[in-house]
């Protein structure tokens, strides 16, 4: 099978994407496929037309690759591709839209308020901040609406820290949200072909629990898979993750990040194109389910070529 691997691009997560892509290319070659890597740029459509691949493996992360933009082009060109359809990607990468969808479907997601930059600049939204802070309590979390990694995510321990956190979050997106902080265990559920893989728990190894930079770094965060959970918790987490994927339309392939609070799981976000690097969570979960990385890549490819199999 002739596979183009789409990677890199202009996203801020270019570095991770290049690593995901390189690892996928290795696996595809070992599996005997004809592999054409493409660094997604201005010549993407031209190159896809010239290469005429059987399928595109999308290893793009972040805005531009995970948000449905590349997927839409692939749909127009009639090239099957891995991962969710364009519409599902667009819904998932936008946390505000995704959380609204979850709410509509009755899935627990922490309370939040979203703002555009215009709201502050032109409509005096700052005057509403105190009320929201009262509702959400401190600490609260400020996040850019779009973006797949921890970039721009800040904790605000008090009202004085909110403006700085908002300025930081607005560096990454024109829309940001303030979200209630849920104290609990961080877990992630990877979904493949409508089924949940074993749950991964991320345990910070040291220091500041609010240091997002440390979260996905080997040595600073310890990952346990399968996570040590009671059957009740495991079922509740899995159900919430699968319901989320169904609601957003990405049940074929995605990773759902949740917090297990004292009152059960809360869904934080969905990654439509989860990382596939050495340290990424999806490959760890697949491995715990007895799948090698080659098995995982094969399964993802099969789902793209025969979506009905999902």
């Amino acid at each position: 099978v002739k596979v183009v691997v789409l990677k890199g691009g202009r996203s801020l997560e270019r570095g991770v994407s290049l690593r995901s892509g390189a690892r996928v290319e290795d696996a595809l070659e070992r599996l005997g496929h004809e592999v054409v890597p493409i660094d997604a740029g201005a010549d993407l459509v031209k190159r896809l037309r010239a290469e005429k691949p059987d399928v595109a493996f999308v290893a793009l992360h972040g805005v531009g690759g995970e948000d449905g933009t590349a997927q839409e082009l692939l749909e127009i060109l009639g090239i099957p591709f891995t991962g969710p359809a364009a519409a599902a990607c667009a819904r998932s990468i936008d946390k505000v839209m995704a959380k609204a969808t979850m709410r509509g479907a009755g899935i627990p997601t922490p309370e939040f308020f979203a703002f555009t930059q215009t709201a502050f600049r032109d409509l005096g939204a700052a005057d509403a901040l105190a009320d929201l802070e009262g509702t959400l309590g401190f600490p609260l979390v400020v996040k850019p609406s779009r973006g797949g990694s921890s970039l721009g995510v800040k904790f605000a321990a008090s009202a004085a820290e909110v403006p700085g956190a908002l300025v930081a979050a607005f560096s990454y997106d024109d829309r940001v949200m303030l979200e209630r902080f849920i104290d609990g265990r961080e877990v992630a559920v990877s979904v493949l072909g409508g089924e949940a893989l074993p749950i991964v728990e991320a345990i910070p190894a040291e220091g500041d629990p609010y240091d997002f930079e440390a979260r996905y770094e080997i040595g600073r965060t310890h990952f346990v898979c399968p996570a040590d959970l009671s059957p009740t918790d495991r079922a509740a987490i899995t159900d919430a993750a699968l319901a989320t994927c169904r609601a957003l339309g990405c049940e074929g392939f995605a990773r759902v990040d949740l917090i297990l609070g004292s009152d059960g799981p809360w869904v934080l976000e969905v990654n439509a194109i989860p990382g596939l690097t050495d340290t990424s969570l999806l490959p760890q979960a697949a491995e715990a389910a007895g799948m090698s990385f080659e098995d995982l890549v094969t399964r993802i490819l099969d789902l793209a070529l025969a979506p009905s199999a999902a």
Partner: protein
Amino acid sequence: MTEVPQPPHKRRAHTSTRDLERYAGLFAERTTVMRSSAMRDLMAVTARPEVISLAGGLPDTSTFPPERLAAQMSKIAADSAAAALQYGPTEGFDETKDCIVEVMAAEGMLPDPDDIVITTGGQQAIDLVTKTLVDPGDVVICEAPTYPGAVPVFCSYQADVRQIEMDGDGMRIDLLEELLEDLKAEGRRPKFIYTVPTFQNPGGVTLSLERRARLVELARLHEILVVEDNPYGMLRFGGEALPPLYQLDGGDFVIYLGTFSKILSPGIRLGWVVAPPPVLEKIVLGKGATDLCTSTLTQFFVRQYFSEGGWKSYVEDLVDLYRGRRDTMLEALAEHFPAEATWTEPEGGLFIWATLPDYIDTGDLLAKALRSDVAFVPGQAAYVDERGKNSMRLNFSGVNDAEIREGIKRIGRVIGEQVELYESLAPDTSESAATTPSLPAQDESAEPSNVVPLRKEANG
């Protein structure tokens, strides 16, 4: 001979979690302080061709005539191919050391060639000195901010790094004295003080003559070493040159680090250390363990280049070029950066250090700037702690005037947006939020420093 080459052997693709844990179990403790981060990934984006990068520290090597390089390399091939392709002495070739003596003499120093070891760039010089002197937990003192490339070196040898604030006259020696007294009271002796006294990277400031004298005096008094890193001394755009610490001290307590990177080429990876003989002996042993010797070929190249004369006129050309670019950047900063920003006005070197209101995190700002295809180094890279978050390093040597103007204009625009946004969020605090700059914190009695606070209105 015409066989089709085989594809390279690919590493096993299925590095599993178990493998990772197994490797992690083998890692040395010092690797836990070698951090990668999302922010480092962000720097990967700065390498895209459409990005105007003011983030590098790159000399403009396009000014070196290609035909000259070709002629020199041909001469080496014709005269001494076998020797140029061979290993060399660990401490470097005597003939290349003669070139180093010439360079140092141009800055008023007269080192004994036997006190010199040639290194693979100035970076290796920092590494070897630290390797030679520092045990885990030993105190190393440096400037705040310090050379970003020195931070991972000190961290990987598990040094306890203490950073001393600077003002327009360089490192605050009064604060250094306080720290030395405090350490003494704790019964601890720092191993060395690392400093870039002239056209500091990233600060752009120069240590004053009085402070130079006092620093050397303190080193003698406390019997600690000063590591003087001087890559930019020859790149002076104006004003009087100040004597290097090495010259003031005579080389007893000052270890001197030099490099050809900024006066000739960073690609040849040639730097050097001048140290007192007992220290030098250990450094040479350390270097032998690291790489046996510095590239013979590039040492031959330097020898050839210097034998033809005219190396100083090439440096003068570079100085003229960079002076113009510095002026361009300063003009662009005055035009495009908001009123709350301050920056240094260097008399030489490659960098300007700009400080923004303290509510702006330049790491996040970089993400926003990258959306406008422009990059800089976030200030935090120059600190081992949380300081520097609202500062940035700007390089003016590696890009042309048009790019400098456009790059600064774009950065100014994104800063302006953040300032405007912050003011709409916290109107009551906009007064008090005006800068607590980290560099221009000069005391009142100090001479007028070369730190220029901006007085222009933020552009719309």
